[in-house]
């Protein structure tokens, strides 16, 4: 186990900056998820930790050691690839033991002086068997990868990483090639495995559900920058900027361009056909924004039907009159596409609602869970 620290890490591919000066500290035994849309630099960051890409500038620490110039095999890491990268012509056993069989002592002597194997055949066998047992691969050790299902291949890829007993696991979208059901199942297994082995893990995904369910902490990346690093709930409740707010949560947060007006000591957010009173608890942040344009954010699940008994009572300016555009029943909830004047909103409303397409409806917003963002910097005001 070791911590991983990225300091001012940058990667340039000719003119393109894939990773832009990121700083990140991954604690010992932590499960950190790097999440972001494709092309945000998350995989490049991971590959730099693995040593498969060279950093253009900045430092990578694994433990207390700077590993920028250490070759991948000597970094004490193991990586699980998106397409598993199993050796097709080798059996499961050989796939898992390949790295152990190659390891020589002492590792720092060049070939051909490094003749002593690091592991005896017996040790290798023990490690492979115990990893196979842990992953339920016991009966498959003599099969070739092509004779395995997707889920089994995925487990072999994990097994290959586990037998090396690395200090850090690096996983590059390891679940994206599995079907939906298997993905959920494997997700839970990975979490259990991490708890059991306690190995520092950096996990790359573009799937925010995966990120929310698996990560001890999540680093949200966009255009080469780390936008926010925090626990899943903090990311959800207190997004640092519009990108994080829109990326975390499904369906995405509603954003409304509003102007902030001051009236009788209250702050009111107004748009065409949309008017709400901002929560008094946040007034400390607002004086500078009076009379200015801002972006108001509210999550679909924080919008309620006023005709239903709900947690949210009609209160101080939290009611909005909307037209119902589309109703999509999902079972437990109903996803509604609404229009308040010209402002489109998406709401997740309890399925008891009677509202139908074409109706006019009063919805209540849970203003304590609303967000406000600076229009220029896109940074959260509260």
């Amino acid at each position: 186990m070791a911590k991983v620290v990225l300091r001012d890490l940058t990667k340039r591919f000719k003119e393109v900056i894939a990773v832009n000066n990121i700083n990140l500290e991954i604690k010992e035994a932590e499960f950190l998820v790097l999440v972001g849309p494709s092309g945000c630099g998350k995989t490049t960051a991971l590959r730099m930790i693995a040593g498969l890409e060279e950093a253009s500038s900045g430092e990578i620490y694994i433990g207390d050691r700077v590993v920028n110039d250490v070759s991948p095999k000597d970094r004490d890491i193991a990586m699980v690839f998106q397409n598993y990268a199993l050796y097709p012509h080798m059996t499961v056993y050989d796939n898992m033991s390949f790295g152990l069989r190659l390891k020589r002592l002492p590792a720092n002597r060049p070939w051909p002086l490094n003749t002593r194997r690091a592991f005896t055949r017996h040790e290798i066998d023990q490690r492979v068997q115990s990893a196979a047992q842990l992953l339920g691969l016991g009966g498959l050790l003599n099969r070739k990868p092509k004779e395995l299902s997707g889920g089994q291949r995925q487990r072999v890829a994990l097994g290959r990483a586990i037998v090396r007993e690395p200090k850090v696991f690096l996983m590059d979208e390891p679940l994206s090639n599995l079907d939906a059901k298997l993905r959920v199942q494997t997700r839970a297994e990975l979490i259990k495995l991490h708890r059991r082995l306690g190995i520092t893990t950096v996990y790359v995904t573009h799937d925010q559900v995966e990120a929310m369910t698996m990560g001890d902490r999540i680093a949200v990346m966009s255009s080469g920058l780390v936008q926010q690093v925090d626990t899943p709930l903090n990311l959800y409740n207190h997004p640092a900027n519009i990108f994080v707010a829109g990326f975390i949560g499904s369906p995405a947060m509603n954003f409304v361009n509003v102007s902030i007006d001051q009236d009788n000591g209250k702050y009111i957010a107004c748009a065409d056909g949309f008017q709400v009173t901002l929560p008094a608890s946040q007034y400390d942040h607002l004086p500078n924004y009076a009379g200015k344009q801002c972006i108001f954010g509210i999550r679909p699940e924080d919008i309620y039907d006023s005709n239903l008994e709900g947690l949210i009572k009609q209160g101080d300016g939290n009611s909005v009159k909307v037209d119902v555009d589309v109703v999509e029943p999902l079972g437990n909830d109903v996803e509604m596409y609404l229009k308040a004047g010209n402002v489109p909103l998406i709401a997740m409303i309890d399925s008891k609602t009677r509202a139908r397409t074409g109706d006019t409806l009063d919805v209540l917003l849970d203003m304590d869970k609303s967000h406000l963002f600076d229009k220029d910097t896109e940074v959260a005001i509260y």
Partner: protein
Amino acid sequence: MAAPFSKLTKGLKIAFLTAYLVTVVFPMIWVLYTSAKNTQEIYRSPFGLPKFITSPSRRHIKSLITNYRKAWVDSHFGRYFFNSIYVVGVSLALILLLGCMAAYVLARFEFWGRNAIYLLFLCGLLIPMQLVLIPLFFQFTDMGNWLTNLFAPPVRALGLGELTISLQNSHAGLILIYVSASLPFTVFVLTAFFRTLPGELREAAMLDGASEYRTFFSIMMPLGKPGIVTTAIFNFLGLWNEYLFALVFLTSDRLKTLPLGIASLSMQAQYRSDFGLLFAGLVISMLPVLLVYIVLQEKLTKGITIGALKG
């Protein structure tokens, strides 16, 4: 209406394919059984079955054995055969080893000048070998002299005798030509093939602690097998039947390869007309090719389709 029509086309198809099969296979079988006849028999009925089949008797079996003994021993086909095996075998080993390495690097590594090197190989495909025959002949003379001047003095100094290196009239020289002439095609096919292998494998091996050589020999070569087999077969067929360069560069009889042997037999046949012997020689040179086809035909078609779809 559709059924009888499709039956008709199917019948036509079968008829056509059968005719094609007969035209291709019959000459081969003809050569095979004619090799058991003696010259008189061949003159009497060129397409008739040999007596050794129609009326098996010790005398006629003897004429079969005589043909092959004469070919193998008296006409030195045994020696030519092993010369061919040696030259083609060593050439193939070198072609595949060097070709694989070059193709793998061109397909998987990024470095300055990569495309230029690849194009250089492709240029090799465009040059007709007959065109370079004469210049090559003179170049080999010069190279032989140059190598002799380079290595003879130290060898003499060590007291190991007089050394003369000649690339003409030597198997080494012929192998050199075969290897360089076959590399462009081999590299071209294998580069396309190695590009289809997932690049993550190399990275996975790197993380597993494999050196580039280990990755190449333990992972990429085994995975490249279909492509390697295909190029091996094509090169084998080409080199086994190669005549022109062998004719120009091999002059002494003890070095000759099978195509030269057959040629000299057929030339002798103009005067001596021992056709049974000629056919026996043909069978000897044909057999390895047939064997390769029969054993590897499945892999060959597989390799060709792989090239077609992914190359």
